């Protein structure tokens, strides 16, 4: 035996470690990732596709999905624009406290989402630091779609910035200087020279932000009020239906969210070359 295996390895190029290690990896991922995901699909469609479709098209379900998309969209818009601006300022100017600002922008990723939601409540809630002055004016920020957007902005704050800033940092200043000497205004330079180089970073930053915002649960459950048909996002809907024992209803939305994140990550993964195209 001791002579046979080495011979097999070398002569036929067969390495036992290779299939063993790959098999091991897949086996480990099975209960951790594959099976949970698979079971959503198996369970969700076990009662037939028409049941699944009915659960999906229930008005509250549709509303929850729409609300999630809309609030995530606006949070993404804001964070991408803000990320662009912040990346521009922080990579083009050097000033006292610059690093402190960079750390602060990146901080929200490290804060538990429930804490983020709670913090927002303490600020904007009817008895909050700012909210108590707004409430008498009839302005309510919390327990609205706006609150969900605020929460989404908070938890996804550094994502777009984190993708865009490195590109800004590595971008040669001479490109912008060249554009200026050719006769372009700052705006023309930004539009024709800087922005095209950032296209990939903007798209991937936006997708990341959006994917993260759509799935946000911890902060939204605190600030939204979780009112079905009014302030209930898709993840809250799943949680609510599950608590009510309506597993099929929860499952239908879960499938949609899972597919949706597959889609976004496929784009991020396979369109990498396109996003960074020269």
């Amino acid at each position, binding site marked *: 035996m001791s002579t046979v295996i080495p011979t097999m390895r070398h002569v036929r190029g067969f390495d036992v470690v290779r299939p063993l290690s790959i098999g091991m990896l897949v086996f480990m991922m099975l209960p951790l990732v594959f099976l949970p995901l698979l079971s959503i699909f198996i369970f969700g469609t076990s009662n037939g596709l028409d049941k699944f479709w009915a659960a999906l098209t229930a008005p509250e379900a549709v509303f929850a999905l729409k609300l999630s998309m809309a609030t995530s969209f606006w949070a993404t818009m804001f964070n991408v624009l803000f990320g662009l601006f912040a990346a521009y300022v922080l990579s083009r100017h050097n000033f006292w406290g610059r690093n402190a600002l960079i750390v602060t922008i990146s901080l929200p990723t490290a804060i538990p989402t429930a804490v983020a939601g709670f913090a927002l409540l303490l600020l904007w809630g009817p008895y909050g630091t700012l909210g108590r002055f707004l409430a008498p004016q009839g302005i309510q920020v919390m327990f609205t779609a706006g609150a969900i957007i605020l929460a989404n902005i908070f938890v996804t704050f550094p994502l777009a910035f984190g993708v865009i800033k490195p590109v800004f940092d590595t971008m*040669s200043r*001479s*490109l912008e*200087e*060249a*554009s*200026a*000497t*050719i*006769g*372009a*205004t700052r705006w*023309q330079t930004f539009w*024709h*020279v800087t922005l*095209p*180089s950032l*296209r990939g970073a903007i798209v991937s930053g936006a997708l990341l932000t959006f994917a993260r915002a759509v799935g946000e649960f911890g902060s939204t459950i605190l600030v939204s009020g979780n009112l079905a048909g009014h302030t209930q996002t898709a993840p809250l809907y799943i949680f609510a239906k599950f608590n009510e024992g309506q597993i099929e209803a929860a499952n239908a939305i879960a499938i949609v969210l899972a597919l949706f994140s597959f889609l976004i990550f496929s784009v991020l993964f396979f369109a990498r070359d396109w996003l960074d195209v*020269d």
Partner: protein
Amino acid sequence: MKAKEKLIEEHKVPVPPPTASQKATSVVGVSKRFGKTSVLEDITFDVAEGEALVLLGASGSGKTTILRIIAGLEQPYTGKVILHGREVTELPARERGVGVIFQSYALFPKMTVEKNIGYGLRIRKRKRKEIRETVNELLTLVQLEEHRKKYPSQLSGGQQQRVAIARTLAYKPEVLLFDEPFGALDTQTRHHLRREIRALLRKVNVPAIFITHDQEEALELGDRVAVLNKGHLEQIGTPYEIYNRPATEYVATFLGAANILEAVVRKSALEFGKTRIAANLDPEKFKDGTCVKIVFRPEDVSLSKTEFVKPGHHKISAAVVEEISFVGAYERVRLRLEKNGREECTTDDQFFLTTDTPESQSFKSIVATHPKPEASAMKLRVGERVVVAITSFTVLPS
């Protein structure tokens, strides 16, 4: 050395300094500070219409800063920049109309070659037809017609540089500024491109300012060369003048090898030890008894095995051959001059290594080069004694 001499010959006809009407670009009394450090001090020069001026200096000499000040990418602390009679010191870069060819070329990576070239006209909102025609003309000029649809990353360094030049020519720049144009290229491409750019500049007749740290490049590219040292303009003149009549020791040593000997002025001649060299000196500048430096190139040294020195050559002293090295087209000889008599002006420590013995310190080393045929005729050997004479030299105040 031979090649360089040849190349200087070409420029022997001195270019007259620009008159007021010909001035394309003037830098007047420009100084610049970064914080408390002064990087440029009172720089003044003109570039004539169609002329190529090279700013030559080591890194940190401030040459890039001058370029950036002309381009409007940097503001001078004092002084003015004038382009074709118009003062532009206060204008932002985009209103100056200068063409900068960056060291990295700074081509826009997401635009094709033709988009890059047409950029200046597009942002000037020119008509499409006009843009197309200009771009076509320029593509022909820089011979990149077949590459028009390519992106910069698909081009070679030389091609990228041509795109960068065409991109600035599109909007008819007041002056072209080249920032270390051949820094990123290998030696062969560099030589080739230098010639190409010279030819191109003659064709388009746009004044140009090059910056470089490469003395050979400066001599070849420039109608005139300005030598910068630590923010000071040391000398400005034709390559011939700069090389053969350096105004300062820095210029002499920065442009190729130079031998320096100290001497004292006596009755309008130069004396060191027992040697006397007749020289046509300005009595105002060089009074009797002042210490001066005699600067001469290695190729200006003539060696003889006999005491006989050719007429017109100035005999210096006897010397011993210390080292002979063969450097391609010529032979380089290191010689130790024999001390003959007391030297008044020598400041020893400046020139000798402390490890030298006291004996060797009483000698001076010079370097001579001579072309191959001469070298093979003389058959010098290390340790041999020869008589050293110089064919031409420059006298500088000490």
